[in-house]
């Protein structure tokens, strides 16, 4: 059988890659996709731990996370579309309306 550590290690690696992508990328769209990568890394850890604990509760939580991610994607993409309509750009650097 595959050791649990492999899955947790992959989950940690994916999460860190997601965080790095969030800071490296410069447009709102890919930054938003980086958040999805982080969510998926957490999902992998949930499923692996559910398997090692022998309880399906972790998989139910992953189901809820996926549903909430779908809602989040819908609203987030609507906001990005709105920003693009007003500013003709989705670069993160140009969103400085609230900068002091």
């Amino acid at each position, binding site marked *: *059988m*595959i*050791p*649990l*550590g*492999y*899955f*947790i290690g*992959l989950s*940690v*690696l*994916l*999460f*860190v*890659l997601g*965080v*790095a*992508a969030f*800071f*490296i990328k*410069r447009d709102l*769209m*890919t930054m938003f*996709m980086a958040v*999805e*990568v982080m969510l*998926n890394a957490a*999902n*992998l850890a949930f*499923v692996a*731990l*559910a*398997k*090692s604990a*022998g*309880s*399906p509760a972790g*998989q*139910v939580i*992953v*189901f*809820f996370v*996926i*549903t*909430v*991610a*779908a*809602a*989040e*994607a*819908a*609203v987030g*993409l*609507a*906001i*990005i*579309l*709105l920003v693009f309509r007003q500013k003709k750009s*989705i*670069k993160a650097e140009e969103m400085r309306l609230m900068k002091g």
Partner: protein
Amino acid sequence: MGVFLFFLLAVLCVGGVLGFILSRNQAHSALFLVLAFTCLGGLFGLLDAPFIAAVQIIIYAGAIMVLFIFVIMMINLEQGIAPERKRWTLGLSAVLAVFLLVELALAVRGTLGTLGRTGGETIGSPTELGRLLFTDYLYPFEITSILIVAALVGAIVLVKKEGKE
């Protein structure tokens, strides 16, 4: 066999995320992410979670990423975005990522010994999950459906063009 499959899927998954980071074109980034999420679905299958694997591939790699690609097509930027952010932010984010990796690895290493292995009987059959969703997790399930409806209406209201009768 299982270990071989794990490494194949893990390498494809990490490669997809790396391609997502390195690609300059947003549409290519999104397609790399579809690859990564599909491989993640395969990993869920390896972990005895067939229902979650199907949901991952249908909803994440299918619906959500297609939504992203639709919006990318609507926004239709010119080929990528020129690299104009200062170099030190790139270095800083790399340092942050390394620190986070070390920190998480240290945190996981301490607890992993007590967690056991991924063996044993099947736990994630769709029947079992469906029973749990409609008994123990009924309230979260209903609240999530209300959340989905609210997000749907909110997205429509946000994007709707004003001033048209």
